[in-house]
């Protein structure tokens, strides 16, 4: 009796596993083909709008690999990728891992090489750890476009929404004016290996030294691990260590939320000034309470669109030149540096007054 019960249990468990595995294998498979087929039918009609009138009806597969999925930022980028797919008829999709792990990004890109996609647009977690796999992708004839990676070597082109110098200076111009050019400030980065975050902070500190000589940076830069609870705990610790700390600059989208919550709880909303990269859905409640004073960002949807648009132009063998337009807003007059680094003019500064214009 007991033995047979266990046999039944084993059987049930085994069949459940088989079922889950077939379901897991079957589930992702059907989704790409319809996406590829449906636009393919519509492609001839749509092609002229997306590709500036070039007569080329090949349909390309373009994968956008993001730092991590499940955060508002990259959900918004996916909207841009989907818009590109809908407007041009190409098979463009976004993928990524649920954690910001460089090793997972390598694995995803290896899968894409094996699948034989035509182009990869990537937002690296760590540029250095992706160089090898991106080199293999290029060897396999795949067009590689990166974003937020000004030190990358193994890519055809890199796109930045703006120069990191301009963007870092934007924060310090605002923070310096809010603080009246006096007092101490500190800065957060999502990770000490995130190139863009560190370049923004470098530029902010340089701008402060040049324009607000009476301001003092303390604690260099702090690491939040892109977790608002870590940013919150660090802020409390910083304020204990430096009781007269008045200015905060965040880099990861959730940094200012963690900082803002600490500022609110300590009742320092009026005494402190917080600026940083974020999006209204994350920072909105703190912009309303006054804990955060200004956030800036570039619209990830436009960046996603621009990356895919550039990949498409390269795939079609079109001319790539300084001053070209990649259709998306803020990317219509691109500056090309060193033959592979494109810079747009797409930063958006938001305060409590205009946050409702950006519902994401």
């Amino acid at each position, binding site marked *: 009796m007991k033995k047979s019960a266990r046999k039944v249990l084993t059987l049930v468990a085994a069949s459940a596993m088989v079922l889950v595995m077939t379901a897991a294998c079957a589930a992702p498979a059907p989704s790409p083909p319809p996406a590829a087929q449906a636009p393919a039918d519509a492609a001839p009609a749509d092609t002229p709008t997306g590709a500036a009138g070039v007569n080329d009806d090949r349909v390309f597969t373009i994968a956008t690999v993001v730092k991590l999925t499940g955060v508002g930022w990259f959900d918004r980028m996916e909207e841009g990728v989907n818009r590109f797919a809908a407007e041009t008829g190409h098979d463009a999709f976004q993928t990524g891992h649920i954690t910001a792990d460089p090793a997972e990004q390598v694995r995803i890109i290896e899968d894409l090489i094996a699948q034989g996609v035509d182009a990869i647009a990537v937002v690296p977690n760590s540029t250095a750890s992706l160089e090898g796999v991106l080199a293999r992708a290029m060897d396999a004839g795949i067009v590689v476009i990166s974003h937020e990676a000004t030190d990358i070597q193994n890519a055809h082109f890199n796109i930045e929404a703006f120069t990191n110098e301009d963007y870092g200076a934007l924060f310090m111009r605002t923070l310096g004016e809010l603080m009246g050019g006096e007092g101490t400030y500190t800065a957060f980065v999502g990770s000490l290996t995130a190139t863009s975050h560190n370049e923004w902070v470098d530029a902010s500190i340089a701008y402060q030294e040049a324009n607000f000589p009476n301001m003092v940076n303390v604690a260099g830069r702090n690491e939040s691990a892109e977790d608002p609870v870590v940013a919150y705990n660090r802020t409390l610790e910083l304020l204990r260590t430096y009781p007269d700390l008045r200015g905060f600059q965040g880099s990861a989208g959730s940094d200012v939320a963690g900082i803002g919550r600490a500022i609110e709880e*300590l009742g320092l909303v009026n005494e402190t000034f917080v600026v940083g990269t974020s999006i209204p859905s994350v920072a909105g409640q703190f912009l309303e309470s006054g804990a955060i004073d200004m956030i800036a960002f570039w619209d990830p949807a436009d960046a996603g669109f621009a990356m895919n648009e550039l990949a498409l132009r390269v795939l079609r063998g079109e001319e790539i030149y300084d001053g070209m337009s990649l259709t998306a807003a803020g990317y219509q007059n691109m500056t090309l540096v060193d033959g592979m680094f494109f810079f747009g003019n797409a930063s958006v500064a938001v305060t409590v007054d205009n946050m409702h214009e950006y519902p994401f």
Partner: protein
Amino acid sequence: MSIGAGLRKFTKSSEFYVLLAVVLLCAVIGMRNPAFLTVFTGLDLLRASIVPGIMVFAVMLGIIAGGIDVSFPAIAVSSMFLTARLFEYLEWTGPVAVPILMSVAIGTALGTVNGLIIAFFKLPAFIVTLGTSHLFHGMLVWSIGARPVNRLPPTMDAFSRAEIFRITGETHSSAVPVTFWFLLGTIVVVYFILNYTMLGRGIYAIGGDRVSAERAGFNVRGITIFVYAFIGFASGLAGIVHTIQSRASFPVELIGSELLIIAAAVLGGTHIGGGKGTVLGSILGLALITISRNSLIMMGIPATAQMFVVGLIIVAGTGMSAYQAMRRENKLPRILDTAGGGVVAGK
């Protein structure tokens, strides 16, 4: 036992060495920055230890029972995010207890799944939970997607601001949130189970020697299921407290915290092979990890060096208690050397 004898016994325990490490660390930080030695630091650290703490004591229970559970962050994030999304969808305005109970129930259910697999198939907990950890987290993201919850329902939001007490100084102010009771409750429950119940005896027994425990009449299967269900229960609680503390819920948080949590339990003298471990030890282990994770800025250690220093503290801390355990073992009579008079010599 007199107080003096008790104290002497304590100085020989591994807890004593962890306590020494905590005091030493505090002294070093305090010397570098006197601002560390204030009540505000204490309260901030207390608050930072709530979520990891709830998980440490549950995981300790599992390690004592001879199994290393690594799925608790996945259970915590699954319970909290599922709950947050559901109550956001419901536009919940009812009592905050309902989402908390919901998260705890999800956690307990997932933990029971672990327990059933481990107990019935007699598989190592580490292997099973490595698998279920991906299973649970993957199922979460696959089923309900990964869009974060940026604003909690109003009653949960209000609860996140509820405080037991707050101390306000000239430049700083610090509070112990109401969620601290959850940590205290977990500690009391685990202490009671381990020290005053037959279940607790059984947990130590099956961690020490599973076969002997079975022969001694312990319901090994039942106890195993209970242990993993309890880890699930505590993870569900820790998850929802994390969401309440964040005032938002992201499906990627907490993942990756498992090793530091296990390190806290092991630092406190919990034997990684099972059968040994105390609540006091884990409190000290938790203190050591929390202080080293949250006080390095005060010491002026730059962010680039912080991970290195945390690793150093863990290695030094486990080294100290392992050294003490080794010395204790060397003092035990060797059965072979003292054959015949061994029992007498050992007294």
